C-alpha cells in the first residue's frame, strides 16, 4: 500500500555527536529520492564524508526507531543514531 509520493520528498535531517561535527551543522533540509533510509545515509555519507559505517548506526524517523529499508516520505524528520554513550 505505497502512497503516491511527490517527485522529490523534502526531509529534515538532524545530526548528533560525530555526525554533527562532520556534517558541520545540527540540522538541514534536503530533497532526496533515496528509496530507503539506508540509501539516504549513503547519499549523505558521500556528501559529508561521514566516518561511521551504517552498520554501527541506528536510524530514527519522527522520533521512533525505524528499519533501514523504510522509504523516507515527504516531511520526515530523520536522525541517524551513532553508538550512544550516555551515563
Amino acid at each position: 500500500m505505497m502512497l503516491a509520493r511527490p517527485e522529490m520528498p523534502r526531509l529534515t535531517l538532524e545530526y548528533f555527536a560525530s555526525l554533527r561535527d562532520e556534517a558541520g551543522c545540527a540540522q538541514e533540509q534536503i530533497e532526496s529520492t533515496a528509496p530507503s533510509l539506508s540509501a539516504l545515509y549513503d547519499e549523505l555519507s558521500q556528501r559529508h564524508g561521514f566516518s561511521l559505517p551504517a552498520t554501527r548506526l541506528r536510524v530514527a524517523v519522527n522520533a521512533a526507531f525505524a528499519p533501514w529499508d523504510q522509504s523516507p516520505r515527504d516531511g520526515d524528520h530523520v536522525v541517524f543514531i551513532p553508538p550512544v554513550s550516555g551515563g
Partner: protein
Amino acid sequence: MSAFLLTETPIDPTSFSADLRRDEAGGYCSFEGWVRNHSDGQAVLGLDYQAYPALAETEALAVLREAEARFDIVAASCIHRTGSLVIGDMAVWIGVSAAHRDAAFTACRFVIDEIKKRVPIWKRERYADGHSEWIACHEVTENS
C-alpha cells in the same frame, strides 16, 4: 510512577527522589555518574553531552517501565545532564525505591546499564592534551 528528565542545568534530584518515597518502600538505591578526571589512562578536563531529546525521553521511559515490570520495585526515576560539564559535575542520577533492598539494587543497576546502552545521548571527552573525542560505549548489534 517513573519520571525522566533531560536538563541543561545542574542536576538536583531532591524533588525526584522525594517522589520515590512511599509508605511501602523500605529500600532506596541511587546511582550518580560524576565527571572524573581520567578515562582509559588519559587526563580528562570535562565532558560535553548531546542528546536527541524526543527519542531519549521515549527510550529512557521504556527502560524505567521495564525495570518496574522486571523487578519488585515501587518506582524508578532518572535525570540526565546535557551540555558542557567539568570534573565533579553530576552527569546522571538514578533513584529506585522498593520494599526490599535486593530489588532496589538490581533495578538501579539495570537502569544505568540500559540507559548507557540504549538512550540516544552522546558524550565527548575533552582531554588535557587539547584533543577531544566522541565516545562510543555501545556497539550496535541489531540494525532495526
